């Protein structure tokens, strides 16, 4: 099997996986009772209307009066044509809602990702270079602490200390602040800090362990024997090979955090980003938006895995793609 064929097969599979997961989501939602309908009925009953009719009209309005398979086919058509429907919970098209969410999420996740990628490996290498010394313990302890402390708990404490008690940072996020403004930087310091401390732990650990492995490799010993300066030896011989597994782990890790814990940080800091949109959609059973968000998340995750695998395959010649 050639590389191209391998990539093609993997891509096809990625699309299939997305399709399967979104279908499962669709079924899960479709089979759950929709509270909006009984709300409509309750309202009608309370104001002297006909609850049954109101429930019917609400179902019609939400397109729930159609049989399941028709709704499913409609939904699939929508997926391909990028018409993901109307979000009843936000009174805007689903695509627009997701774009808005990405707009706010990106404002903190881009600086966060960049900082993580820079700081994580550095701390890891530093730790590996001083393995089992107090420096290593300190660095490891710090990274671990950051990783282990639940993001939302850490965020609450930071808000308590820095916003409530010391009044150094704003209590609430102002979504209307321009992206490139001091105000925006100011209000994003705490969320980004929480997320960076939360994510460097994992990256740091991988780079520490990987580089520890390479440190003992024969080529490293040779380099040392040849009198290459330790720093240079590190940069050339430890950092480089470490980057291969690291970069792939990175993609996976970042994605996990990106999709999961940012929701809680968004809630604590009041950022109207992607996580909160998804959560609100779930709470209000805004079917179209849940499906749209799931589709987006799944797509990102599957594509992430795909890229990870392909990069790994290309970068590391020891792995043959026939085997996978």
């Amino acid at each position, binding site marked *: 099997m050639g590389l191209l064929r391998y990539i093609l097969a993997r891509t096809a599979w990625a699309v299939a996986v997305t399709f399967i997961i979104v279908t499962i989501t669709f079924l899960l939602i479709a089979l759950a009772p929709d509270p909006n309908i009984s709300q409509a009925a309750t309202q009608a009953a309370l104001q002297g209307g006909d609850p049954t009719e109101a429930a019917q009209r609400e179902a019609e309005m939400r397109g729930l009066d159609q049989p399941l398979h028709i709704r499913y086919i409609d939904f699939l058509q929508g997926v391909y044509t990028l018409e993901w429907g109307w979000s009843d919970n936000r009174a805007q098209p689903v695509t627009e809602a997701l774009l808005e969410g990405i707009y706010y999420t990106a404002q903190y996740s881009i600086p966060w990702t960049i900082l993580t990628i820079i700081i994580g490996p550095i701390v890891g290498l530093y730790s590996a270079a001083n393995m089992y010394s107090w420096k290593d313990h300190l660095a490891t302890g710090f990274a*671990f602490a950051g990783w282990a402390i639940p993001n939302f708990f850490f965020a609450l404490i930071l808000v308590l200390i820095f916003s409530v008690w010391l009044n150094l940072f704003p209590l609430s996020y102002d979504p209307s602040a321009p992206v490139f403004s001091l105000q925006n930087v100011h209000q994003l310091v705490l969320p980004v800090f929480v997320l960076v401390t939360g994510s460097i732990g994992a990256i740091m650990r991988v780079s520490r362990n990987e580089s520890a492995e390479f440190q003992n490799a024969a080529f490293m010993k040779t380099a040392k024997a040849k009198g290459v300066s330790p720093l240079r030896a590190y940069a050339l011989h430890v950092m480089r090979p470490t980057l291969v597994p690291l970069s792939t782990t990175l993609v996976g890790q970042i994605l996990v955090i990106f999709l999961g814990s940012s929701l809680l940080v968004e809630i604590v800091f009041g950022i109207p980003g992607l996580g909160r949109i998804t959560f609100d959609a779930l709470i209000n059973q805004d079917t179209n938006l849940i499906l749209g968000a799931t589709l987006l998340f799944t797509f990102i995750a599957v594509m992430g895995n795909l890229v990870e695998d392909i990069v790994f395959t290309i970068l590391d010649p020891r792995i043959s793609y026939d085997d996978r």
Partner: protein
Amino acid sequence: MTGNDESIGADDVRATSGSARRFDEIDWDDYEEPGLFSVTPSLKITLLAGLPIVLLGLYDEFVVGDREATFVRLGSDLGLSGPFETLGVDFDPGSLDFLFMFTIVLFIAYVGYPLYRNGRMTRYYWREFKRNRPAVISLVWLGLIFVGGVLGPFLIAMPEQDLAAAYQPPVFASIDLVHTTGCVGEIRDGRCYGTWEHPLGTSRGGQDVFASVVHGMTVTMQIAFITTTIVAIIGITFGTVSAYLGGWADEIMMRFTDIVLSFPTFVFFLLILYIYGAGLGMFILVFAAFGWGATARYVRSKALSISEEEFIKAIRISGASTPTIVRRHVIPNTASSIITQLTLIVPGFLLAEAQLAFLGIGDTAVPTWGQLISAGRTSIDFAPWIVLAPGFTLFLTILAFNFLGDAILDAINPEAEAETDR
């Protein structure tokens, strides 16, 4: 991992690989007789101790009424009501408690017992492990949580509502009287001071925070043990079977794992738990259902890579069949890495539970740390202890699991060891 002694050449390390091999050998004993229904000591323990629990669990499920306490009913059924009452045996465990007990038995049988049997090996590991001080502290901490979780509920009563004692401060702390509904301790300058009666203060309903944290330990341990067991069973089975079968079956099973791994897990937790209710049992089920993918993949790759090792090749040349190799050599050799991997996934479950509880999607009937944090956050600015006490306990527990996992990883990683000797 055992193949490159010569490149290191330190005595200690040679001892390591030597004993590691011995450990492996002894572990093989459990699998010595390859008959399908061979009874290993571990299995014996499981059956002996586990069976009564399973039976009691079934009895609880099918005989005892909804509102009856299991042991009270058991007492009356056995004609032992008298002695039971005298002894104060009136526990009413739920199905999760039974499952929890069963997993502890499994743990003893498959981790504790082998460690005990291989005393020398255990002592060696312990020596290695002891050098990592944070890990030792972590172990002590987790031990405390475990003991607190198992015994705590028997010693400390479930925190009770006391409307006249809302927001009592912890010992040595104080709070403005305006926030409280009454003060158990001393009142000075319009501030209420904490007492030993509520060492960590009380919540909005006057529930003792310390008692809540202790009861939270039980839930934490239940999540950790039960979920991990389920994940381990599914993951190891799936991973080894996949590696063992190879070919198309492997392909299909791994693609299936891909799907499981590709689920946006958190969204699915939310979706399922929000729509279909969020009891603690459901939690554990959902976590386990989405959590085994990584383990399966890991086990499979370990199994495959071990089978590439020289010594396996040697065994193969000597005529052993693939199944035998996998069962007798591959699984035992991966056991330690699997345990490490499992240690490292536990914090994820604890964190997920806390996150969901924070979002208001949780079993409010069960006093978890996440619930407590969630409930305390509205008053964090004047009564921060309600959030801080469970928050730090959770934090330290997750930290401890990580340190522990890392220490085990280091202990079984000869390369990293060599590093120390330099």
